[in-house]
C-alpha cells in the first residue's frame, strides 16, 4: 500500500490487517510508517515487525521500482497494490502558486501512473492481481473548485479505465476508487460538504470492491448519483454554480 499512514489509506489498511491480510506499507516518512505498521500489528494481534515498510515518495519516481521490489521480497510476492497517496490543495492556492500546481499535477497524475505501471508489470508477470488506485470524483467533470486537482484525477481515472479495458482478460483487476467528500485531514481546510463520508465507511466499500474486482467505486455510494447529475448539467449551468 502506498499512502496507508493517513486518511482513507489508514482505514483500508486497518480493515485488511484485521481480517488477516499480509501488508507492506510504502510512504514518505519512515517514523510515520513505523508507527502505522505498529498500529496495524497491534490491532490485528500480530507480532512486532510483521508489517513491513519501505520509504517511497510519489515525488521521487526513480525509487518506485526498488520500493515495490522490497515489498515483493518481504511478502513473498504481492497480489494486490493499493495506492491512496496524493497531494492536494485548494484551487485558490494552486492558482496562486504555479510551482505547487506543477508538483500536484506531477505527483497525482504522471508519477502515480509511473508507479502503477511498475506495479502492473509485476502483477501481470505473475498472471494478474489487483491494482486499486484512489482517484476522485473531482476528475469526473471540469468544475470551478477543483480545476487543476480535478484535471490530474481525470487523467488518472482515464488511465485506470484503459488498464481495465486492456488487461482485464489477462487477470489484472484495475479498480478506480472515486471518493466524494470524505472527512479526512486532506479536506480539513474545506467547509464540510453535504453527503460527507467517513474514512471507515469508504474503506468498507473499497475492501468489498477489492474482493469482487469491481472496476469503479464511488464512496460514499451516493456520490455516483450526485456525479451523474453533475455530468448532465449543461454548460451554462456549470458556469453559474460554484460546485
Amino acid at each position, binding site marked *: 500500500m502506498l499512502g496507508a*499512514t*493517513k*486518511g482513507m489509506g*489508514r482505514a483500508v489498511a486497518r480493515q485488511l490487517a484485521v481480517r488477516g491480510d499480509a501488508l507492506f506499507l510504502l510512504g514518505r516518512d519512515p517514523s510515520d510508517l513505523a*508507527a*502505522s505498521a*505498529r*498500529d496495524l500489528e*497491534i*490491532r490485528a*494481534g500480530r507480532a512486532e515487525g510483521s508489517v513491513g515498510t519501505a520509504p517511497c515518495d510519489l515525488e521521487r519516481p526513480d525509487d518506485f521500482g526498488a520500493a515495490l521490489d522490497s515489498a515483493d521480497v518481504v511478502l513473498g510476492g504481492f497480489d494486490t497494490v493499493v495506492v491512496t497517496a496524493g497531494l492536494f490543495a485548494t484551487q485558490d492556492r494552486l492558482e496562486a502558486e504555479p510551482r505547487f500546481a506543477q508538483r500536484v499535477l506531477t505527483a497525482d497524475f504522471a508519477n502515480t501512473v509511473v508507479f502503477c505501471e511498475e506495479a502492473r508489470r509485476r502483477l501481470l508477470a505473475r498472471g494478474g492481481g489487483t491494482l486499486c488506485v484512489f482517484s476522485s470524483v473531482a476528475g469526473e467533470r471540469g468544475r470551478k473548485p477543483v480545476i487543476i486537482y480535478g484535471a490530474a484525477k481525470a487523467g488518472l481515472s482515464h488511465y485506470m479505465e484503459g488498464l481495465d479495458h486492456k488487461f482485464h482478460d489477462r487477470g489484472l483487476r484495475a479498480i478506480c476508487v472515486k471518493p466524494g467528500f470524505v*472527512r*479526512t*485531514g486532506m479536506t*480539513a*481546510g474545506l*467547509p*464540510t460538504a453535504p453527503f460527507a463520508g467517513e474514512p471507515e465507511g469508504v474503506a468498507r466499500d473499497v475492501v468489498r470492491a477489492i474482493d469482487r474486482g469491481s472496476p469503479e467505486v464511488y464512496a460514499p455510494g451516493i456520490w455516483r448519483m450526485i456525479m451523474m447529475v453533475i455530468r448532465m448539467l449543461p454548460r451554462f449551468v456549470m458556469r453559474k454554480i460554484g460546485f
Partner: protein
Amino acid sequence: MGRKGETLAGWGRAPVVPGHEVRSEDLARIADGRPLSRGLGRSYGDSSLPAASDHEVVSTVLADRILSFDPDSGVLRAEAGLSLEDIYRVFLPRGWFVPVTPGTKFVTLGGMVAADVHGKNHHKDGCFGAHVLDIKLRLADGRTVRCSPLVEPDLFRATIGGMGLTGHILEAAFKMVRVPSPWIWQESERMPNIEAFMAGLKAASADWPMTAGWIDCLSSGPKMGRGILFKSRWATAAEAPSRLPRPKRRFSIPFEFPQFVLGRPSIRVFNTLFYWKHIPRVKRRIVHPESTFYPLDMIWHWNRMYGRRGLTQHQCVLPNEAGAGAARRFLEVLTARGGASFLCVIKDCGPEGVGMLSFPRPGISIALDIAVRKDTPALIDALNECVVKEGGRIYLAKDAFTRAEHFRAMDPRIEDFQRVRRIWDPNRKLRSLQSVRLLGDPP
C-alpha cells in the same frame, strides 16, 4: 473567522456556537496556535467548545494510532484520538479492558484523560487518571513535553481532569487490566427509597467491584428515590458463555423529537414501567458487557430525543460528611421545583484522585439528564445552591449552566489549578467556552 453556517455543540446540543473543527492525523501541527482540542464531543455542555472570539478547535479523532502495547505489563500507549470503541473492539476479545470506563464508548483517550472519567468501579479503582502513566502534551507556546507522576508532576496532575486547559494532549500511556472473560455477572435489586438505596450502595461496595443505580426521580414522599441497584463483576471463565459477545444491534433516532415526548407524564410512565419490570426483588444473571457499560450507545443520536433545545446533565457529588440525609435533601430541591429527569443515575464514589480538578470525592454522585427549557438555568442554580450547602461539587464534563460563583464556592482547588496554568500558559491562550464562563478566562 468562522465558516458560514457551521456550528459546534457538545453532546447535549446546548449551547450551540459558531465554529468548526480542524482535523489532521498530525495533531502537533494543527494544535499550534489553536485554543483547544476536542475528541468525539461527548462532554454535554461547553467544555469542548471555542470561546466567543475563537472559531476553531482541534479535532483529535484522526490521530488514533495505537503506538505500543505490552502484553506482560498491560501498558497501552496511543495517540489522543484513539476511541474507547476501538480499544473495546480490539482488546476485550483478547482478555484486556480499560481499568476505568465511562458510560459511553464513543470517547477518545485524550477526552478520558482531560475529563478524568470515572465509572461503576470508582469506589474500588478510582478515576481513569489513576491508571495513566504519562502524557505527551503540546503546550500553549508550541513546545512538546512529557509529564508523569514523576516528571513535571504538577502539570501532570493539572492535565488529568484539566479539561484540555493545560495543553493539547497528543499521546497518553495507561495500564490496561486483565479480565477473566468478556461477560459480566450482574445482580440487580429493587430499592424502595433513597435511604435503602444509600445503604444498599454502601453494603455492595465491599463485595462488588462495580455498582451503580437508576432512580425514579419523580417518586416522592416515602417512595422518594426508589430505583434499581445494579451490582456487577466480570464473569469467571467458568460462568461465562464460551462465545464472544456479539456487537449489539444499533438503532438510530432519525430526527429531533417534539418537546412533549420527554415531558413529565411520559417520564412518569417510563419510570413506573422500568421499576416494576424488575418483578423479582433481586435478579442474578450473565449480561452483555455493552448492556452493562454502554446501554445508551445502542441508540444512535439519543440526544435528539430531547428535541431542538437539547439537554443538559447535572452531575454532582455530595460528600459523606454531609450525612445520610443529603441525597434526599437534594432530590427534594429537584421535585420542589417541578424538575423532571428522564434518567437519574446514582453511584458512590471512593477517594479523590490525582487530578487537581477531578470530579469525584468520597460521597454519593447523582446525575440528572434534564431537557433544556426556559427555567433550566434557574433549576441548575437551585441544585447548585444545594450542592454548595452540602459541601459537594459538580462534574465539568457535563456542565453548561453553572455560574462561576457557585463553582468557586464548590471547589477550593481552583487556585492551585490556575497557578499551574499561569506557569505553562501565562497568556491564557488555551481556553474553552466553559473556562471563560467558570474560570474567568478572556472571552
